[in-house]
């Protein structure tokens, strides 16, 4: 028998009789028809049959030389109809990329300062909405909600449109020379100048901790991608918050895009007594249970258990609030739902993306890419299903307008209020 190695890329290329496009389409259709286990209710066989006619049309001129690349957009449209964020096509390059971020090492390959910024309606300024941990922007202290109004002394209002404004920043960074950003920060609209220099950075994301002046710790987990590095770091940061006598904690899961189940459940052990997820496939041939109890991580597959000791676990026992939004996905939703079910903390924000009850599995395709499909359903220890969406106990919408113009982060303010802490920002 061939032993399966998790990291190994499988098959590529084809010389069988059907066209490469047909082979690739057949394989993708087969995966969808027989292994899709997500919420979509379409007749899967009808779906693949319909797209087969489209493939026939596309390939009519070339017949058996019709290439993989001609099948790919058809496959993408086909699975697009399922409208399921856990079901998507991965090109060979994308598959490599996802492997890199699993390893916690995703080089940017260009000069970057490590921020995501959005346009602000009625202005050419840019609003910082995400900062990559350990990048130049992070090191220079740039933060969520900062409004960039000028670059190297030139006001962004001089730029002709939003694209030009964004390009202006990119070009300044690409010179490799120091860049001076003028920003407005907080409700006081404090004006600051921050100097930073672009460099090649690691785009893999890691948890981070910030202790606010009012003593509240904000623990941000952007994703659970980096194998062996997220869960461990969460426990280190919780311990740090305890050592610094944080009076309460806000768990920032807004924008958390999910990742590895192992890392999610390891992270969950910093908040829950006994984090647990059971995964079951469509035909219920495989039931895999993940559980952490008394510092031991147990994975039980069809009754066979494997154990690992998790040294240095910490537990946060102080006041806690969890922030979620419509971009909180997959692993982020699992964690929020588990904390809510255990009645450990209220959720603040808006309902999450809606893939919090399935896992996705990349099934290898013969072009070197993969079709990631909703493969397993997830269950709690009491055998009730994880909910698709985590629903907030306090509904507060992110308002980019309030953030950009008044420096107010409304969900965060609500979280502080739920913790009984008067927001310093009012």
């Amino acid at each position, binding site marked *: *028998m*061939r032993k399966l*190695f998790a990291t190994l890329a499988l098959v590529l*290329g*084809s010389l069988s009789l059907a066209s490469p496009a047909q*082979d690739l389409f*057949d394989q993708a259709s087969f995966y969808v028809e027989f292994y899709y286990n997500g919420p979509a209710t379409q007749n899967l*066989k009808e779906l693949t*049959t319909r797209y087969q006619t489209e493939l026939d049309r596309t390939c009519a001129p070339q017949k058996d030389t019709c290439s993989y690349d001609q099948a790919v957009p058809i496959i993408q449209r086909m699975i697009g109809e399922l409208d399921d964020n856990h079901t998507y096509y991965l090109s060979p390059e994308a598959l490599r990329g996802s492997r890199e971020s699993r390893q916690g090492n995703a080089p940017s390959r260009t000069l970057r300062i490590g921020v995501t910024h959005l346009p602000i309606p009625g202005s050419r300024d840019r609003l910082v909405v995400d900062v990559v941990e350990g990048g130049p922007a992070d090191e220079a202290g740039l933060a969520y909600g900062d409004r960039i109004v000028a670059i190297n002394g030139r006001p962004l209002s001089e730029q002709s449109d939003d694209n030009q404004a964004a390009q202006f920043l990119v070009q300044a960074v690409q010179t490799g020379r120091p860049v001076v950003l003028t920003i407005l920060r907080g409700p006081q609209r404090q004006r600051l100048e921050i100097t930073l220099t672009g460099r090649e950075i690691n785009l893999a994301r890691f948890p981070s901790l910030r202790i606010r002046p009012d003593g509240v710790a904000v623990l941000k987990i952007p994703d659970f991608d980096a194998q062996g590095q997220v869960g461990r770091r969460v426990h280190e940061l919780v311990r740090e918050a305890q050592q610094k006598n944080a009076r309460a904690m806000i768990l920032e899961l807004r924008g958390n895009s999910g990742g590895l189940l192992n890392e999610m459940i390891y992270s969950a052990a910093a908040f829950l007594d006994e984090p647990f997820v059971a995964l079951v496939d469509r035909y219920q041939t495989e039931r895999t249970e993940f559980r952490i109890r008394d510092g031991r991580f147990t994975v039980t597959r069809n009754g066979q258990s494997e154990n690992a000791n998790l040294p240095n676990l910490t537990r946060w026992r102080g006041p806690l609030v969890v922030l979620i939004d419509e971009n909180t996905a997959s692993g982020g939703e699992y964690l929020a739902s588990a904390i809510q079910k255990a009645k450990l903390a209220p959720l603040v924000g808006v309902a999450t993306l809606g893939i919090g009850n399935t896992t996705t599995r990349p099934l290898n395709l013969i072009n070197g890419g993969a079709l990631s499909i909703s493969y397993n359903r997830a269950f709690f220890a009491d055998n009730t299903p994880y909910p698709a969406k985590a629903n907030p106990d306090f509904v507060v919408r992110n308002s980019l307008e309030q953030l950009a113009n008044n420096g107010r982060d409304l969900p965060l303010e609500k979280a502080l209020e739920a913790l009984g802490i008067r927001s310093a920002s009012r």
Partner: protein
Amino acid sequence: MTLRHALVSSVLVLGMVSPALASPAQDLFDQATFLIGFYYNGPAKVANFRELRRQYQPQLDQLCASERDRCGFDKAKQVIGRIVQDIADPFTVLMTRDQLIDDQRYGAGLGPAAPRIGVWVRQTPRGLVVSEAFPGEPAFEAGLRRGDLITQIGGQPANLAGLTAAETARNAFSLSFSRQGNARTQNLTPRVAQATMQPRLEINNNIAYLRIYHLYSSNEYSTAERIHDAARRAEQAGARGMVIDLRDSLTGYDSEALLGATAFTGKGGFIYDRRFQGQDETHTVESGKLFVQAEGGDKEEQSAVERPYLARIPVVVLVNRNTINSAEMLAYFLQAAGRAKVVGEATAGALGMSGSAEGPLLNGEFIAVSSLRMRNLDGSPFPLKITPDVVVEDNLEALVAGRDVALERALEMLR
């Protein structure tokens, strides 16, 4: 051209209507025929999945004629069984989930999941001949040994079905056996085996005897590691030669067979060749480390023997008609490298092929498909089976009389 096109579209329209009417049997048939027809790359001539479906659909229709859309999985299983039979390579088979769970347990260094008394037997008209009694299991503890003849189980004449039924019932039962004419009866209670199927080393008169039952492994356990350990212990104990007994050995992992063989060959490798060309996969072992290289990709270390050893003592390998797949490969790696002589019968015939358990199928079972053709590092194909250097047929009469003819021959060669 136009007419043909019209025919094709009418088939497709039918295809769109049929899903609502498809029976469980039809779905299972479609799934299994895809897995076989799309991936098969073994020695048999197998049509692609569409053609395969066309060939066997009439048989399914016939079986489902009365039940139509309620036609159950069992009918599809019959047809899939016939396809597998027609392919007739010993690797391509339907597998139950329980078999896969057992394989996982072997990989963890354990015995099968269900309670057993711990024997491998061959059925004969006189009863069941014990070919192996696993030390530490109920039968061994009750005194049973290789060569004993089980005559009665629960007071009934012994046969395979009776033994299986008694083990499945889990209760204590009486078992009568004879050793060279001396009859005995014992009460046995089946139980779940623990670490009884790991390789077993004995050293007698300066000759080492290594019994290998399978070639599975996991993160916690490696059969190859045990083979390296055994090779080291044998040489340190001053053994002048070693018999490796692979008779009746189950399969396991090809990479584990390769790693195990390097306890005697030092290095080696093989190529997995798929129906879909463009990227073969090359497995090599150097200094106890297993490297896997996808064509066009980098050579990556996948696993390693913790304490690799290289033994120099002469080796004879025993095989028989039941030695299958990865176990055949272990014998082949040693024979082809000129590192061992092989004694016994021609093997099961799953040497030149491999694959994984595909599925799960709709009914919860799996199917092993020969999707990989095995090649040597120079590109030449593996033979389909081992041809022994010295042919010695299994002789159950002699075994019951207390003689292991093939083993005697092997010991003679090492003397």
